[in-house]
């Protein structure tokens, strides 16, 4: 391996020896694709015919008026096929997989969005597909598991460790070290060993490129602030990368504040002081870990942000103060989501609702001449069980009770 893929001191490729030739092959395929304009054209074609690119920008008229202050705009990544920005990365890596001549894809998933997106891509391109998902996440995201299986993917519930995203990543690597000859690992976020952080950012940069042009076209000026939620960091890297050269645009990453500060209570690696620099899952970044370097449990109402590490590129942008990091609590996130649903008819995923919560907190303090832009990374259909519990909807509860009763009667009659 070349000693590359560093962003200041973060990143690298800390990989088992068996995967070194596989990463060399991947890096070479990626660099060749970047040089080849026809690759990007093919990518844009597929994203505009199979997914919904370019996704629009919506102005939140009612909430802008209600909250006062800055005008609020939303980049609609929820309108991608499968309902999230994950499609951008997955279709790009799918095209690369075809170029490398591989026949099988594997992926980890937290919320299930990346798993569904990968299963979709595999169905379209004719790849075999296995998805690793923490057993804890399988339990809270059944609708996504259902669709992955309908699309022909094998979903493996990972019962190791904390049974969430990091454990799914470990299991995907364990599969890959056995099956690298015919298998590509479609890592879902801008984390992991080089070239994944850079490559995933490249595919997601389509969000920022579009958003910048759309804001300029619509308002003749750029937004003052851009908000994105940060789990691994791919949607944030995607939208932020459109604005890196615009010094007057403040970039705000919003992490999972969960139940507040303290070990095990949240998944805020950069906004809080609980994380330290370490090396795990193949890369160096800030991790929520103890003094020995053992990863700690994390908590978030949203499975997709419930992760111990963060993109090494974001750790660098944090240290160089090019991105400001904040954390939104579970309670504020659910409230921001309900507010968006009720007032605008948009249904942001719990992950994306972190960005909304922070934006709603800051907008009233800004001038009406200013615009702000929120990346709505996904929609919340998958969160219906979690949200119904959070808002404690009695009709939903009754529906589930009736449904369960009908199922058990069916089973008894069978």
């Amino acid at each position: 391996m070349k000693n590359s893929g560093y962003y200041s001191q973060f990143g690298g490729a800390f990989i088992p020896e068996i995967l070194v030739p596989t990463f060399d092959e991947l890096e070479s395929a990626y660099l060749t694709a970047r040089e080849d304009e026809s690759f990007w054209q093919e990518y844009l074609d597929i994203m505009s015919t199979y997914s919904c690119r370019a996704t629009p920008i919506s102005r939140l008229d009612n909430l802008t008026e209600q909250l006062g202050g800055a005008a609020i705009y939303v980049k609609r990544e929820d309108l991608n096929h499968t309902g999230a920005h994950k499609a951008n990365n997955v279709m790009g890596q799918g095209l690369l997989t075809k170029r490398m001549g591989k026949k099988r894809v594997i992926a980890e998933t937290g919320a299930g969005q990346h798993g569904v997106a990968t299963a979709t891509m595999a169905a379209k391109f004719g790849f075999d597909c296995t998805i690793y998902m923490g057993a804890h996440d399988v339990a809270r995201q059944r609708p996504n598991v259902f669709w992955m299986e309908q699309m022909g993917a094998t979903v493996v519930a990972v019962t190791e460790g904390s049974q969430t995203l990091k454990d799914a990543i470990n299991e995907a690597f364990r599969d890959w070290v056995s099956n690298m000859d015919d298998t590509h690992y479609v890592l879902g976020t801008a984390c992991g060993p080089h070239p994944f952080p850079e490559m995933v950012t490249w595919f997601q940069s389509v969000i920022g490129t579009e958003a910048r042009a759309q804001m300029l076209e619509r308002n003749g000026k750029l937004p003052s602030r851009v908000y994105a939620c940060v789990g691994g960091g791919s949607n944030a890297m995607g939208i932020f990368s459109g604005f890196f050269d615009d010094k007057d645009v403040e970039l705000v990453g919003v992490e999972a504040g969960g139940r507040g500060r303290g070990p095990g209570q949240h998944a805020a690696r950069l906004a809080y002081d609980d994380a330290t620099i370490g090396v795990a899952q193949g890369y160096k970044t800030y991790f929520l870990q103890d003094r020995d370097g053992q990863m700690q449990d994390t908590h978030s109402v949203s499975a997709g942000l419930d992760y111990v590490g963060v993109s090494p590129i974001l750790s660098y942008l944090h240290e160089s103060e090019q991105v400001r990091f904040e954390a939104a609590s579970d309670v504020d996130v659910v409230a921001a989501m309900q507010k968006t649903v009720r007032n605008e008819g948009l249904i942001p995923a719990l992950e994306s609702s972190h960005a909304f919560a922070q934006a709603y907190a800051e907008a009233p303090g800004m001038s009406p001449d200013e615009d702000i832009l929120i990346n709505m990374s996904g929609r919340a259909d998958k969160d219906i069980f979690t949200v119904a519990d959070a808002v404690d909807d009695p009709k939903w509860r009754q529906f589930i009770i009736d449904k369960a009763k009908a199922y058990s009667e069916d089973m008894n009659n069978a």
Partner: protein
Amino acid sequence: MHERVTALELAIKKAREKKDILLMTHIVLGYPNFDDSLRVVEDMVNAGVDLMELQIPFSEPMADGPVILKANAEALKRGATVEKSFEVAERLTREFDIPFLFMTYYNILYCQGIQTFVDRCKAIGIQGCIVPDLPPSEGEEYLDAMHAAELSPVHIFTPNTPESRMRHLSDNSSGMIYCVARKGVTGKDTAFSEDITNYLSLCKNTTELPLAVGFGVKSKEDIDYLRGKVDIAVVGSETIRVMERDGVGAVKGFIETLVT
């Protein structure tokens, strides 16, 4: 002769004068607990084990299969720490006259401070380290510290490793080279057959260091197959399996079946 002959390499060569193959075993420190770790090592040494790998538990053991993965997780759940691992390792190196190596993941070294970790290894008589997620290109500080302390950084050859890369790994190693017998993680079966013979002769031709072979080695037949082809057979997950199935007391009998 290459330029960096370490105590580990000398010890291996000396032991090889009396045996045509050596046996290296692997335990996870603190699994099922530290008292049992001590007892298992004592039984292993008495049964005729020549070298041992002591794994310092890590929460994300990416290269390990289900058996060792579970042992790592259980050890941590029962309160294993890096500090306690060093204490127990120190006792072992003092009480038993065989070479001991640490096996662990890079974050354990990184969080200790690499120089501190290496200094402490030296101080307690650990002879080498296997760090499976640290390729030489990422490990400059570690390699410099290990070589300066005359300890052995052991790298891994795999069936996917091209010859040029094997030479690069060998140049950065001392003591021995660890050859994994197949793709995949620890603890799954390996078919010891002709394919492996070709791979092992390539390994042998690309390094002057002693060769150890692990991953799926679990019976006297496997070891007999490796006899004459390499210097060391490594039995890892299987001893943990025996311990889990038949109790700590069964390990000695199992090792004796391997060395007779």
